C-alpha cells in the first residue's frame, strides 16, 4: 500500500518523519497549555498592547474630565458665595414660577382665535387645543384671561361657553400661548387636528404667530394638601 515506506533504509526515513511529528505534537500541546495558563496580556504583541493601553488611557481621560466637572459642580454648590446661591435659586424660582403660572410672562408665541357664534365648541376641543400646544412646546398658555397651568381643569359650561377651573369662559375663545410660534401653528394645523376639528364643528379657526406678546393673567399658588417633597 505504501511503497515509499518499505525496506530498511526507509525505516530511518520513517523515524525522521516520526521525530518531526513528535516535535509537532509537543509544540501544539505546549502552545495550547501556554495559552491556557497565561493571560491574554502576557502573550499579546506589542502593537496590541499599545492599542489596549491607548483605549484605557482614553477612557481614563474621559472619566477624569467627568470627575472634574462633577467635583466643580459639587464645590460650587457647597462653597458657593451667597450671591451665587441666591442667583441660582432665583433662576430656579423664575423657571418654576412660569410653569406654575404665578407670574405674568412675555415672549414670542401664537394667538389662536376660535370664533364660535353658535356655541358648538365644547370643553374637550379646547382641551385638545391646549394639549396640542403643550406638545408643541408652549411654556405658558392663557384662554380669555384664564392662565392654564398643570392643575387647570375644563368642563362644559352650564348654559353656554366652557368652565375653566371654575370660571365661565364664553366665545369667542382667544388662546394665547408663549413658545415656538411656528411649531405650535403647525401642530394645530395638522390634518385632522384642532383646526380641522374646529372648522368641521361649524366654528372658525384662525391663528397668528407673534414675536412679542404678554400673558398678564396669573393664578394664586395653592399649597398642596397631600403631596410633600421628599428632599
Amino acid at each position: 500500500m505504501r511503497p515509499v515506506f518499505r525496506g530498511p533504509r526507509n525505516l530511518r526515513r520513517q523515524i525522521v518523519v516520526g521525530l518531526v511529528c513528535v516535535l509537532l505534537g509537543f509544540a501544539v500541546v505546549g502552545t495550547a497549555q501556554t495559552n491556557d495558563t497565561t493571560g491574554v496580556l502576557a502573550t499579546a504583541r506589542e502593537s496590541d498592547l499599545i492599542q489596549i493601553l491607548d483605549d484605557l488611557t482614553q477612557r481614563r481621560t474621559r472619566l477624569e474630565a467627568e470627575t472634574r466637572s462633577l467635583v466643580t459642580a459639587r464645590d460650587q454648590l457647597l462653597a458657593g458665595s451667597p450671591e451665587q446661591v441666591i442667583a441660582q435659586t432665583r433662576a430656579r424660582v423664575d423657571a418654576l414660577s412660569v410653569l406654575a403660572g404665578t407670574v405674568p410672562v412675555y415672549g414670542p408665541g401664537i394667538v389662536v382665535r376660535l370664533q364660535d357664534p353658535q356655541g358648538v365648541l365644547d370643553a374637550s376641543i379646547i382641551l385638545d387645543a391646549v394639549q396640542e400646544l403643550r406638545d408643541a412646546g408652549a411654556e405658558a398658555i392663557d384662554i380669555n384671561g384664564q392662565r392654564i397651568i398643570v392643575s387647570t381643569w375644563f368642563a362644559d359650561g352650564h348654559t353656554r361657553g366652557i368652565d375653566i377651573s371654575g370660571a365661565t369662559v364664553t366665545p369667542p375663545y382667544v388662546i394665547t400661548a408663549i413658545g415656538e410660534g411656528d411649531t405650535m401653528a403647525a401642530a394645530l394645523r395638522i390634518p385632522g387636528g384642532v383646526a380641522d376639528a374646529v372648522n368641521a364643528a361649524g366654528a372658525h379657526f384662525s391663528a397668528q404667530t407673534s414675536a412679542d406678546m404678554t400673558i398678564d393673567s396669573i393664578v394664586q399658588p395653592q399649597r398642596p394638601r397631600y403631596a410633600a417633597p421628599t428632599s
Partner: protein
Amino acid sequence: MIPALGLLVGVLLGVVLQPAVPLWLQPYLPIAIVAALDAVFGAFRAMLEQVFDDRVFVVSFLSNVIVAALIVFLGDQLGVGAQLSTGVVVVLSARIFSNLAAIRRRLFKA
C-alpha cells in the same frame, strides 16, 4: 505508523513535561504550528496519492515553519505583525482546507 506514534509521543511528552514556551518564541510558535499543520496535511494527501517523499516532507515542514515565523518576525519589526500573522494564517488555512478536500475526495470518493 511511526509518524502517528511520533505524534502521540509528542502529545504525551507535552502533557507530561508541561513545557513553558519561551517568551521570545510566543508570537511565532502558533503561526509555526499552523504552517507545520499545512505541511502535515500536504504529506497526508501526498501519501494517499502515493507520491509521498519523506525528504520533501521534512524539508517542507521545516521551511514552512521557518518561513512563517520569519514573516511574522519581519512583520513585527515593520510594525504590521498582527496583520501579517493574520494574512499568514489565512493563506495557510486555505491550503489546509484544499488539502483536506483532496484527502476527503480520495478517502470517501466524495
